[in-house]
């Protein structure tokens, strides 16, 4: 454990770091959020030329895609990539590596304490821009900006888990502290050997975020209570998921759902007319396309224990179903059956891949 302090803002310090990594050939490319100059659109980008870092916005409170998902595929290139990830993106990356969808070997992960991101819609239509100064002000005081997504407000994992390099966002620092990089492990030490800054052995003190942690705990309880109230029993489930249009966008943007062809889009869920005839004769009516609730319940059993609560599913839902709230709440419960925390550690095995001989004796 060591730290490097730079007398600059966190954002500027981070940009310096990315430039250094590219220029001193420590990595081949850098994965970061950026803002496309011509259109003003937010974008995740793989940048190989430090000259292009001008448009990089590594700390932008925007998530267009879960970068952990994209990075895991990129990691298979064998090229060295430094990636700036939000804590949930880092956890998604770990979950994907466990699923053999990527490798940490050539990656240098950089993450930061996170105050949440704006709803995708507001990032796309530009309406977040006027809210951004207020966001930054509130975040700098270590509080949860009211403009971020519900899922973010309720996030309990806003301090990254074991990135190679960690930064504390403004709220987690003492005033005038500048940019502090907390290095973990030999990979980071090696890569930053010639990086200029004041070396020290400071360790990040999470107690600076106690207040926001308490606030987020409260938000989480409130969000989960709302889900429990709205989405309980068959009627509740239908009330929440009944308007699903079956686009399956939620599963396509999910970093955990890596299957090239989802079971629910496979022939397993194609039916012949006699099947419909039978259902019609038994119930008198049925919905088309079928299996609307099935899809969500099925996905909950297939992946909820690995849900990192990144919120992309809610962002892409065309009818505004609070998918992420339901999935993170149930996911917290299914994961805790196995004392599992998604994305916490590469050595923690995916619950459905292993078992203990003595467990769940109440079942069976």
């Amino acid at each position: 454990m060591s730290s490097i302090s730079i007398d600059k803002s966190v954002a500027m310090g981070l940009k310096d770091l990315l430039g250094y990594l590219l220029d001193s050939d420590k990595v081949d490319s850098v994965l970061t959020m950026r803002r496309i100059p011509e259109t003003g659109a937010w974008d995740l980008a793989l940048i190989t030329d430090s000259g292009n870092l001008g448009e990089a916005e590594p700390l932008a409170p925007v998530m267009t895609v879960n970068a952990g998902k994209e990075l895991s595929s990129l990691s298979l290139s064998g090229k060295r990539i430094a990636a700036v990830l939000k804590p949930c993106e880092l956890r998604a990356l770990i979950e994907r590596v466990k699923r053999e969808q990527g490798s940490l070997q050539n990656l240098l992960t950089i993450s930061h304490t996170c105050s949440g991101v704006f709803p995708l819609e507001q990032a796309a239509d530009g309406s977040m821009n006027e809210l951004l100064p207020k966001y930054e002000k509130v975040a700098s005081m270590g509080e949860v900006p009211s403009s971020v997504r519900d899922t973010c407000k309720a996030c309990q994992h806003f301090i990254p888990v074991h990135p190679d390099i960690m930064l504390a966002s403004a709220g987690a620092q003492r005033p005038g502290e500048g940019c502090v990089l907390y290095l973990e492990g030999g990979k980071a030490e090696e890569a930053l050997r010639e990086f200029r800054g004041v070396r020290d052995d400071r360790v990040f003190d999470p107690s600076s975020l106690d207040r926001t942690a308490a606030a987020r705990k409260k938000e989480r309880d409130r969000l989960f209570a709302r889900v429990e109230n709205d989405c309980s029993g068959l009627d509740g489930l239908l009330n929440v998921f009944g308007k699903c249009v079956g686009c399956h966008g939620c599963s396509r943007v999910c970093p955990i759902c890596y299957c090239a062809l989802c079971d629910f889009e496979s022939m397993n869920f194609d039916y012949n007319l006699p099947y419909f005839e039978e259902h019609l004769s038994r119930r008198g009516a049925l919905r088309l396309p079928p299996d609307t609730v099935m899809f969500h319940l099925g996905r909950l059993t297939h992946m909820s224990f690995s849900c990192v609560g990144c919120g992309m599913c809610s962002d892409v839902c065309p009818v505004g179903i609070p998918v992420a709230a339901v999935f993170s709440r149930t996911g917290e419960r299914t994961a805790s059956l196995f004392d599992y925390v998604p994305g916490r550690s590469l050595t923690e095995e995916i619950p459905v891949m292993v078992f203990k001989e003595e467990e769940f004796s109440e079942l069976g």
Partner: protein
Amino acid sequence: MNKEFVPRITSFLCKWCSYTGADLAGTSRLQYSASIIPIQVMCSSRVDPVFLLKAYLSGSDGVLLGGCHPGDCHYETGNYHTRRRFAIVREVFESLGLESDRLRLSWISASEGPKFARIANEFTEEIRLLGENPTRKSIFL
């Protein structure tokens, strides 16, 4: 509650233990509930949680999953995986306030004909008390 309510219980039974146990119950002329609709699977771990959901959402009043006792799986460890998956499905149900009691996991060996009959009858009775599965009537699923 409707006295004539006859539950339908979709039952996934592993070939080596539970299904054979059911056979034994039959050949031993044990009386057991006619609500049980058996489906033979090669191993309880062949049952994707989605099968249980499909049965539940298609209007089965109860869903029974039967496998070999832990340690006795014909494929050595299949039923340990079954148990974990079943725990997940139950938790998903409970988290959403769905009736998890409509789902049941039982270990029944090939020699346990009487146990099969007992579980079939017990489970049928439990389901009778729960009443018809509301998914039978729902048109928006």
